[in-house]
């Protein structure tokens, strides 16, 4: 199956080792399946893949506009639409949490033509999680390790193979010409039973945050200690699948210019620094609080759901062991006391 896709599309799988940034279609943390390789297999880690899928939707960098600054050129300084790849890309090995993150990021990016174009040309082939890591908490955020939300094809392991669920038109096109055996009824019902058995009891518990007063959350005593611990490295924001803020810069090389958009992090002091020198979030504690409250309060206020899918990458990679689950527990406790 993968072999067939690889003939027509660009197929990416999670990378196990660090690769060099070489080719233009390079995606950090993912490697492109080589069409010449015979073994079309790839290792899939337990839990979320090392790099989130946001790299396919917000490439590092995304070219927004191109222009020339050559003197005497008739089009000097005129903005041009950048050339963008229209090739279909298939991403294999996406976990349900990452698939949900694409839907969440779609909320603020509804009218963003670059994001939408990338969504159109990317098919996500997901694998449900049979095992979860200790850092996984998707069930708390309203997800499930067996979810197919946001995926184009969802694969779940059965006793003697995979059960493929087609979740979108793109997914349908991917399997259209493949000779696949229809799934036995027993497997389908088994998956449905597993999904029902899961449930998510603590999702309602978190919902108390949505209705709570901003002032209560904002003045919580825990921010001071969190802010002091945090070293503002920004790792959490770069690995987070639902962090979507960016910076825009113009880049000119030998008279050819382009405007690029690339990831930024609200953890950096320069992020909100005004030209005048004033900084509304100049203190570390303010920045730490802003990140957590954006995920748990500001984003739900604006769009509805929490801006967190519970992949646990930030819990794994935080150099000072800040755990968003503990922050949530403390906040829930705080609102319950009120």
């Amino acid at each position: 199956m993968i072999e067939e896709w690889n003939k027509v599309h660009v197929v990416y799988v999670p990378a196990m080792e660090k690769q060099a940034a070489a080719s233009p279609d390079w995606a950090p943390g993912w490697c492109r399946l080589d069409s010449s390789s015979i073994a079309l297999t790839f290792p899939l880690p337990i839990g979320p893949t090392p790099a989130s899928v946001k790299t396919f939707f917000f490439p590092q960098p995304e070219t927004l506009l191109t222009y020339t600054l050559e003197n005497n050129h008739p089009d000097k300084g005129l903005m041009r639409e950048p050339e963008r790849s229209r090739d279909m890309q298939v991403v294999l090995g996406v976990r349900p949490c990452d698939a949900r993150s694409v839907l969440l990021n779609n909320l603020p990016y509804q009218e963003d033509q670059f994001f939408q174009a990338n969504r159109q040309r990317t098919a996500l082939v997901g694998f449900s999680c049979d095992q979860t890591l200790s850092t996984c908490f998707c069930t708390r955020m309203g997800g499930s390790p067996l979810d197919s939300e946001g995926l184009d094809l969802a694969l779940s392991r059965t006793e003697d193979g995979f059960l493929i669920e087609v979740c979108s038109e793109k997914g349908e096109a991917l399997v259209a010409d493949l000779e696949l055996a229809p799934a036995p009824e027993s497997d389908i019902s088994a998956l449905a039973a597993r999904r029902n058995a899961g449930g998510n009891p603590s999702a309602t518990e978190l919902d108390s945050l949505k209705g709570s007063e901003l002032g209560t959350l904002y003045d919580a005593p825990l921010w001071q200690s969190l802010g002091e611990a945090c070293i503002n490295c920004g790792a959490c924001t770069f690995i987070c699948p639902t962090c979507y803020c960016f910076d825009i810069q113009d880049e000119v090389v030998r008279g050819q210019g382009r405007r690029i958009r690339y990831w930024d992090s609200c953890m950096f002091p320069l992020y909100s620094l005004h030209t005048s020198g004033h900084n509304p979030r100049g203190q570390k504690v303010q920045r730490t609080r802003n990140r957590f409250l954006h995920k748990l309060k500001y984003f739900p206020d604006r769009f509805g759901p929490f801006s967190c899918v519970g992949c646990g990458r930030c819990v794994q990679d935080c150099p000072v062991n800040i755990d968003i689950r503990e922050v949530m527990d403390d906040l829930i406790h705080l609102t319950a006391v009120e």
Partner: protein
Amino acid sequence: MNTNLECVQPVSGEEFEYSYKAEITNVYPLTRMEKLYQIQLVDPMERERFIFRPGQFVMLELPGIGEAPFSITSSPVRHGDLELCIRAVGNMTKFLDRVGRGTRVGISGPFGTHFPVEKMEGEDILLIAGGLGIAPLRSPILAVLETRSRYGQVDIIYGARRPSELLFDYEYAMWRQFDVGLDIIVDQAEPGWQGPVGLITEILKERIAKGQTDRFREGTSAIVCGPPVMFRFVCDLLIAAQVPVEKIFVSLERRMHCGRGKCCRCNIGSTYTCLDGPVFDYWSVLNLKEAI
């Protein structure tokens, strides 16, 4: 083999979004640091259709340098004949400082909320500006002056650091002709300065002491713009003078990159300065954290 996927129409079918092509038609030095740039949209149709309200801002784009938000200083009746008052302080504004008339630029917008001057008709208006805060305030000032008869008493209080840093000083006589109370105060006097010296709050206190409190309560809207530190002091005085909180409007400044609520950096709580601001009523400001 499966080629169905190529049928998925790429998004490029829709129009690609460019900024308006514009040109700097004139540059007037105002003070040592600030200049007034007159910028005109090149296409006359676009120029006519470019409608903005006082207090809104545009993104000014300089190819090769970047894009930055600036509040519009000109009157809304001038449509796409914009005026921007810009201080040369950062990377892009220092570049702007060196360019002359005829430079091609891009304008996108207008973005953001505006001062609701049309709702203030029949009322007294108090406009308070500190320093460069006069730049976004000149637009409502001109809008009010153009329909002067619809408003009650109009007062402007403007504070600057030094007399030489006063902006638009050539227009004050014209403003006064429209029956406007204009008070100007500076922090440091310079030779030749005959006006008052001190903080902007002193003038405001004087005004309040003069017994205007009744007028304030009955129907005065206040528009305030200045450096971040100014808002709290000025607005506290206004509230003490019984100006209703929801009738005090402030224009806040945040670093912005996209102007469309995507880059996230201008957020104040769950509001974005580029979408829900830059003009906020003081009631919202009091209910937001980190706003001022």
